[in-house]
């Protein structure tokens, strides 16, 4: 699904932030990505959905070399990847339901209203379908972002510290949703520095933990 071969990346041609990384994310896997602040977790994830391109090495997404993709090709790649950020952005002039349906709208696909209702119910936002995004709480925003990330039924879900601003209960709720997605066959890549979160997940689903340290990617934990 995602394959990196001796990948390196540095901003504006400077010193590499990430160096010589090799990784293969198999379909249906659940990976955590950890590392200290500033280690390059977000950069790593941005490389996965071609928001950044490697400065050296090779990066394959769904079998395609991302450096060979056209702009439309990158757009097509992103429709197969659902992304949830810590500071998720919405179109603030549109209500929550329309924001969640936005990937379908911009892809020119019809919005299945009952399915959208089910999705809103799944993330427990049924009562907020007409609410404008700025009026949502942190947890509600993250759940709305998750719903938007999965509405296209993507193959890969990338979550970049989605629980960073949430309390423990809300974090667990979000984790539960991601675990459910993984059980339904979706590949999940979850960046966090919360070890308790990783422990909680390990009790429910088989996970692997990746760690960025010293610019390099390592397998961490008991399953090394």
């Amino acid at each position, binding site marked *: 699904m995602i394959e990196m071969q001796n990948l390196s990346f540095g901003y504006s041609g400077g010193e590499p932030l990430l160096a010589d990384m090799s990784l293969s994310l198999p379909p249906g896997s659940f990976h955590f990505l950890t590392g200290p602040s500033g280690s390059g977790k977000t950069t790593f994830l941005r490389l996965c*959905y*071609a*928001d*950044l*391109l490697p400065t050296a090495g090779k990066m394959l997404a769904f079998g395609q070399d991302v*450096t*060979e*993709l*056209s*702009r*439309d*090709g*990158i*757009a*097509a*790649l*992103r*429709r197969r990847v659902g*992304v949830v950020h810590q500071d998720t*952005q*919405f*179109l*603030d*002039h*549109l209500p929550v339901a*329309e924001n969640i349906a*936005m*990937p379908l*709208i*911009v*892809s*020119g696909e*019809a919005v299945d209203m009952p399915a959208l209702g089910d999705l809103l119910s799944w993330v427990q936002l049924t009562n907020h379908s007409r609410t404008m995004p700025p009026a949502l709480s942190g947890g509600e925003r993250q759940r709305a972002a998750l719903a*938007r990330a999965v509405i*296209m039924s993507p193959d890969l879900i990338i979550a970049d510290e989605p629980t960073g601003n949430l309390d423990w209960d809300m974090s667990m709720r979000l984790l539960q949703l991601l675990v459910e997605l993984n059980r339904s066959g979706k590949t999940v890549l979850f960046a966090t520095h919360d070890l308790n979160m990783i422990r909680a997940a390990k009790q429910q689903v088989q996970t692997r933990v990746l760690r960025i340290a010293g610019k390099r990617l390592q397998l961490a934990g008991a399953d090394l």
Partner: protein
Amino acid sequence: MKRPDLKSLDFAALWRGLTRPDVAGTDRVVPPTGFTAQLTLFSAAAMAFLAVFALALALATGRLAERWSTELAQTVTVRISAPPDQIDDQTVTVMEVLKTTPGIAQSKLLPDTDVEKLLEPWFGPDVPVEALPVPRLVEVTEAAEGFDAEALRLRLQGEAPGAVLDDHTRWREPLVSAANRLRVLGLISLLLIGATAGAMITLAAKASLAANGQVIKVLRLIGARDITIATAFVRRFTRRAAIGAAAGTVLGMGAIWLLPAADEAGAFLTGLGFQGWGWLWPLLIPLASAVIGFVATRWASLKMLREVR
């Protein structure tokens, strides 16, 4: 990394997106922007208003140049200035000469009343023209095959020394040239107005795009193609340009319609307007404005989108 593949942008898809109703609500991805909307509407209306006048100028001067260069080219005048005791004889001689000159269709001695009319603007209605040494004028209409002006001039010189052939070239040519230049200026004005409208719409579109940078980023993140994002902006600005231009055109046509009717006394100024089918020309202005809006916004959108991954 390949260069951004802008050539793959489908113009046909863009046109379809522009002309077909937005059932999916894709246009709603761009938040309403009051200021740029009003700016675009106002600019398009003002430019269309000016374009109507530039068009009217170009058409009127075109008509004028054509009239001067065709109608007047067909006529020449013979002016007879002679002492009172010779003028009648010389007039008879001139009329004979003209009758026998090949290439002249008709010659007509202007009656005193017509000469008075010609002099009226300078001397007023009550001046006794008969008391003035006014030359006699013979209006000559050229036949299709034309005549040898130089030969006629020499013949008149020999047979009626007081007669002077005036083929109007001396004053007609600079007037035709001036009218033609005015027409060119009118057309250049139209082009400048179009370019200015394009620049204004581009600036408004760029302001809107810059204000919506975050929206564009979100849309790219969720997999929107450039064409989808661009179309949302293009549709909006093209419509504003067309609506604003339509309003400006209507106002401009109204102002032209309210100008005094063309008459001989007013000459050129009262002829500044549209005639007959010419009233249809300004209707192209909103269409041209829509095309300018489409091209300008498309260019600005794609340039801006190229900077967002």
